């Protein structure tokens, strides 16, 4: 049970980085840490004691109920798999925005990028 609370701690580290830091790249790292914590929490939920991976081999073919009783939960894994790839796509979008902002204002500091003009 303590691993769940440690996931919360990691999530809060990401939130702190997102709110309190001024550097844009540091904020992106905060979002990445939040993604890590969420994915890890979802996989923790699906773990079963002495569980095996949800992949059926030809030897288990005749005894599928025994496999189903032993396997870990495959549903959170399927959702996390899409979440990881989406995270990469949004990361690329954020880095592109940061590069363009840096080109225009010559800084990563968000307090100096205050004069937004069309």
């Amino acid at each position, binding site marked *: 049970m303590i691993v769940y609370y440690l996931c919360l701690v990691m999530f809060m580290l990401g939130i702190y980085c997102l709110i*309190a830091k001024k550097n844009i790249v540091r904020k992106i790292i905060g979002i990445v840490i939040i993604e890590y914590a969420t994915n890890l929490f979802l*996989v*923790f939920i699906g773990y079963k004691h002495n569980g095996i991976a*949800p992949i059926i081999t030809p030897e288990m073919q005749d005894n599928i109920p025994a496999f189903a009783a032993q396997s870990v939960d495959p549903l959170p894994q399927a959702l996390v798999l899409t979440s990881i790839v989406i995270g990469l796509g949004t990361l690329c979008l954020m880095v592109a925005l940061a590069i363009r902002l840096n080109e225009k204002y010559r800084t990563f500091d968000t*307090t100096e990028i205050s004069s937004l003009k069309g």
Partner: protein
Amino acid sequence: MMVETLCLVFLIFAIVGSLIAVETKNLLSAVISAGVVGYGLSIMFLYLGAPDIAITQVVVEVLALVVLIRGTIAVDNISIGGPRDTLPLFVALVFFGVFVVLGVIALGDMTGFGNPMMKVSEHYLLNSVKETGSSNVVMGILLDYRAYDTLGEATVLLTSILGAFVILRRQGKKEIAEKDYEHVGILEDE
């Protein structure tokens, strides 16, 4: 029990890594520490019975590191100093309080580590080979039972890639844009 101890060790490792990523001065070391956290996560996924996610996490981590280093190396390494604003810290503290209370309440109602509630997954595990023909149950869920999710995922990926392209590609159209500005009478003050 063994897996839980291992996960505890790696999770503490990941938290220390993210602490370094948040607090260190150098941007490049911050990016590399975030990458270290990702690799630690992938080892945990391997022990938790999720080889699909472990493979994906390792490969995605490589690309994310390359992209992030590309973003940070483009400029001189500037560490932003100056006094800290008190308002964001205050907001963060208030948020921590709310989040801790809500999180403890929510986690108290959950089944413990290692005893998942598998109501829907029971059906998937029992019938995946028969109904979809896929012996990897995760792929069976992803591309057959819940293909709508994957469709949404593909849409998000397409949109983010299109957005990044639109943001990045502006050379070649700049001259036309300047002519337009002159024509209308707006001059960009740089």
